[in-house]
């Protein structure tokens, strides 16, 4: 039994070696995304400061964990992972990089606490398509190219979470991107941001419903909804435009309506006070 255990330990120490040199030069601050954040979370978890998921996004939980670490190790408490903090962290903890990255890639549920064998910290995720164990699967298949439309090819593929604007979810973003793509895909970029801003202005306005879905699906409100163009797959540009609008940019100047003067059939819309014209759309109050 003991021999077996030693054997297992050996296997793990071979396959997952801890790395002494890590972290890039950057100062890591709240809101950051990427490999450095993964390492930061893993190392903080190793020491027991961080109890959340290792997902590669520097959120509030990571922030407090880092501050607690700083105060325990008598460093200036600023919530920034600067050179000194990183140095102390590397000295005090271990980081099994390949273990963490492999599990992130496979979408497993895992932790990275110190003093517990790594094999006991993984819960392999079952995929619906096959019953093969993930370990076998990983050996056989290369990680497939992700086809998730919400992801850009350029984004760091290893993080398990994303930042979203306050008060909205990825699905809200997607729904709005659909609407913007259906309504304004031929428009200049700024026109697409403006259409997204109109949706948000309507949510805030007392004269309209106050949810994303309520505004978009209000009968007759958007032609793209009425003729089904909203279900076209949105491109990256419309997603970017929606993100800008959600983050507070409003090129429409507070507009609640817009229309295309060449195709508008409703006479009433012409009576609205006009704010500006972007591309083929006139934006009005």
């Amino acid at each position, binding site marked *: 039994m003991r021999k077996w255990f030693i054997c297992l330990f050996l296997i793990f120490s071979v396959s997952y070696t801890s790395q002494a040199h890590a972290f890039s030069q950057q100062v890591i601050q709240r809101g*950051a995304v990427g490999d450095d954040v993964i390492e930061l979370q893993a190392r903080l978890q190793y020491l027991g400061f961080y109890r959340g998921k290792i997902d590669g996004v520097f959120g*509030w939980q990571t922030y407090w964990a880092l501050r607690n670490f700083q105060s325990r190790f008598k460093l200036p408490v600023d919530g920034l992972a600067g050179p000194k903090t990183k140095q102390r962290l590397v000295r005090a903890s271990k980081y099994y990089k390949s273990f963490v990255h492999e599990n992130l890639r496979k979408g497993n549920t895992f932790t990275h606490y110190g003093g517990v064998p790594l094999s006991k910290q993984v819960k392999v995720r079952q995929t619906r398509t096959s019953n093969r164990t993930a370990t076998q699967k990983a050996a056989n298949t290369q990680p497939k190219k992700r086809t998730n439309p919400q992801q850009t090819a350029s*984004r760091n593929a290893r993080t*398990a979470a994303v930042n979203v604007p306050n008060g909205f979810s990825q699905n809200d973003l997607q729904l709005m991107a659909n609407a913007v793509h259906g309504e304004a895909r031929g428009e200049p970029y700024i026109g697409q941001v403006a259409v997204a801003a109109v949706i948000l202005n309507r949510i805030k306005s007392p004269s309209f419903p106050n949810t994303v879905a309520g505004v978009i699906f*209000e009968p007759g409100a958007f032609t793209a909804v009425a003729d089904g163009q909203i279900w076209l797959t949105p491109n990256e540009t419309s997603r970017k435009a929606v*993100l800008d609008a959600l*983050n*507070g*940019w409003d090129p429409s100047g507070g507009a609640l309506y817009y229309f295309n003067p060449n195709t508008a059939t*409703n006479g009433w819309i012409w009576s609205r006070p006009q704010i500006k014209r972007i591309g083929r759309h006139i934006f009005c109050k």
Partner: protein
Amino acid sequence: MLRILLIAALSVGIAGTAYWGYREHQQKNAILIHAENNYQRAFHDLTYQIDLLHDQIGTTLAMNSRQSLSPALVEVWRLASEAHATVGQLPLSLLPFNKTEEFLSNIGSFSYRAAIRDLDKQPLNAEEYKALQQLYKKSADIQQELRNVQHLVLENNLRWMDVELALATNNRPNDNTIIDGFKTVEKNVQSYNETDFGPSFTSVEKREKGFEHISGKKITEAEAKQIAKTFLGLKGNEKIEVVHSGEGASDAFYSITIKNPKTKSETYMDVTEKGGYPIWVIENRPVNKQNISLNEATMRGLQFLKQHKFNNFELYESTQYDHVAVLTFVTSQNGVRIYPESIKMKIALDDGNIIGFSARDYLSSKRDRTIPKPAISIEQARKKMSPNVTIMEERKAIIMNNMNEEVLCYEFLGTLGDDTYRIFINAQNGIEEKVEKLQNPEPIYGEI
């Protein structure tokens, strides 16, 4: 023989097509009826809710004690918001029906504010009673009008799908009973005066922020161009277009489009006519890799603000999306954060250039303030917090509260379980002005 075969084949074809057509027709009808029923339900729900709303307002008028008045006002608020939501389901968005929706929303906020305040200490005053009576009368008008429409709809079997058709084609906008009925309702509400709600009530409409506090003389198109050049650090070979805003803009501005023939990037910018302040800037270009950190981007942002005479700013929020940093800065005066005065920036993490800037909030709330002395100490404020929350950070801040007033608060950041909360305690009277749960990163769903 061949002819018989051909005829047989053709007749089978025709019979098949006829059957297929019939099926299609039936399916279409089923869907039409389904959609029609949805509209009908929303419409009849609306009239019913207005009935209830009218009665409920009437009941509150007759009440005197706080114990019964508060729940009754809450009920008014609930009914008004329900009716408001129902209106949103009717295909009326192209019909001028905003006033009615605004009316419903105003009843909602009025009753909500009256309901949550301590009516023992601060009972409804004469003006507010008058406002309630006005609301009662107005809701009676709306009720009558809607019932009339409802009656006609039921008697003549009118269909909402026809309304939609009429609105879409704009063919005969004047002889549709439903449209006419709703237009009358709208006209009725329009005659209702906003100010009747009493002085303590700022209507939602007036909350819309303009740039009232900015000063300076009106600038010309050429000056706007010059401002864009210095603000964005342009070299001079770009193509710049300037357009003045339309008459619907609450504050006049110039829209500037800058095209760089070399890099093919496009930059858009709005500048106020009065004083020539940049409202927002967006540069549209792909950012495909990361060379600098979020922290460095923050430094560059702060430096940019300082360069352009935006003083006393500090970082409030930083977030990385792909390879772009989105930063929010707020001003700080004698150690007090002034949250309404915020500026947002987007910085590309490939070369550290600023690709977005928005000062709308800053321009609409910037003014000279004297910060009042707090009446309670931070220890007293701490005692007002829920004992379950572990306080991690604290400072003083000015925020806009629910009544849309600027108030001096103690701000606490605290944790409860895995979540982080931002809690504002009024520094004058110890009221918990705002409690927000701060957003955690959202997991990516459906991976692999």
